[in-house]
């Protein structure tokens, strides 16, 4: 699967690139689901430098919410460390430790869903890494992590618009407004003015 092409969007939407190998003292790859493909492509691009790069690489991989699990293909790369975690939340303490222990020159590569990239990027920012040390590439599901602006509860893997808040039960439309601090889009009550007048849910974020 190739990188994702996004429809035209508004300004707070994150912009993703294509991972490129860079010279670094160490390399940290965090990916989920189809993001494994971006990591494989990254090392393929490194060519003859790949073995030396892999000897300094730590990969953290989370299977996709849609069931995609390509961990075996990453393990086969032969990185110094390659860890499979059942969820991002299970992996987060490991990720934070790696970031806290990092020395100057660490290169970070994030690949997969917007949710995985957003959550990992938040940890990277909090760790104080320079933002030019981080690359991102979107692959796989367009599902969104959305915060209900009313009850503040976050619903993961939202694929339809509108959707029902998993915390307070309000019908929310997904506004194209994104907070990097929350790593979430904003959900706003769609039938606030006319309660009960809710359009049918459409699968917008497959």
């Amino acid at each position, binding site marked *: 699967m190739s990188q994702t092409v996004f429809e035209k969007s*508004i*300004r707070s939407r994150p912009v993703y690139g294509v991972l490129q190998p860079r010279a670094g003292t160490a390399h940290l790859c965090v990916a989920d689901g189809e993001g494994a493909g971006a990591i494989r492509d990254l090392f393929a691009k490194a060519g003859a430098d790949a073995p030396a790069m892999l000897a300094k690489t730590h990969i953290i991989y989370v299977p996709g919410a849609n069931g995609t699990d390509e961990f075996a293909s990453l393990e086969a790369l032969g990185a110094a460390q390659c860890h499979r975690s059942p969820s991002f939340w299970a992996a987060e303490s490991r990720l934070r430790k790696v970031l806290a222990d990092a020395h100057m020159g660490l290169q970070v590569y994030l690949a997969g869903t917007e949710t995985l990239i957003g959550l990992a990027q938040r940890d990277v920012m909090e760790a104080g890494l320079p933002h030019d040390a981080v690359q991102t590439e979107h692959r796989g599901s367009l599902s969104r992590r959305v915060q209900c*602006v009313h009850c*503040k509860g976050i619903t993961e893997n939202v694929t339809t618009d509108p959707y029902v808040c998993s915390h307070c039960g309000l019908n929310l439309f997904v506004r194209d*407004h994104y*907070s990097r*601090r929350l790593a979430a889009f904003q959900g706003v009550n769609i039938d606030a003015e*006319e*309660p009960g007048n809710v359009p049918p849910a459409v699968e917008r974020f497959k």
Partner: protein
Amino acid sequence: MGFEFNNETFRNDFTFRNSERAIKRFPFPFDRDDYMYSVNMEPHVPGRPGSVFEHAFDVDEHYLAEMRDRDLVLKEDPLRCQSLPHMELAGWDLLELIMESKARDYPHWFELHKTGKRWTWINKPMQIEQTFTFLDPSTLPYGPMEYITRQTQGDFTLQDQRDENLWIEAGMVTTQADWSLDFDIGMSFHEWHAPVPLAHEKGVFDRALKFLLKLQHGAPVRRFNWTHTVDPLLDTSPENYPKWGPTRTEITMENLGQRMHLRVELQTLWRLPRSNAIAFPIRCYLIKYDELVTMPKWARRMHRVVRDIHPDLAAYKGFLRNRDLMTAWLAQYDDGAPTSPGWWPED
């Protein structure tokens, strides 16, 4: 000053009203008969005596009622006031700016006495006398930004400046036109303006950011923004949208004059001296349509602006649903006569 503070409410029974004096000095935001976004900034210099521009921070007849309403909002939702840890110095800058301005401009209500770092602040309308040590937060009951903005009308945000950008990283936001500080805090200039339609394409935000990055201490600027609100509800927050949203469906030709309000924000921008942050006070003024049309020039012009506005703007500002009704109602007060340039009611 020749007026008393109103005993009024901005919720439930909505007893808010403007006196004749308040109507005459209302900051009507349209200097011509049509409206489109622009970087409409001008120096925030003292304006005509009696106008809302006379002083740096206008204190009007709604002061005490607005401060009571702010306290109620904060009790319900403490997330309306937030400050990221590195913004405390900017909070002190803001406290100093407001205290010095009010003590200078309204000496009969506010006093500031300094003995070195030991300051005594007297706010007579709110019956507050506080001695504290400047830059020592343990000597105030709240953080410096929260302390002073609990005593000052209008919302406030503080923007840090770094990487050639502005970052909204602190704020007191309880009288907002449907935006969430809790969601937007930490965003860059273009990120927090992202939902605004039409303006990005016109380059408005690129030019505004370039301008603001060069804002100088001692040379504040101001601009207007505006929308409409059903009932004099200061707290039109997205958080509470399910509570106030239904009122938009209750407007009729009969109740429109009493319930539809023009909502004007007088926004000022100040470079702060120690933190190099920018303070952004957003002062909200409300006026009922019945009050607005007592000024014939404003009635004519309001009709033309509402009638001709781009539908995307009416939708973003939240009055598209009632726009036709508002146009019909205002048409009663528009005889087609020309209006004079500028916003002053009787020029």
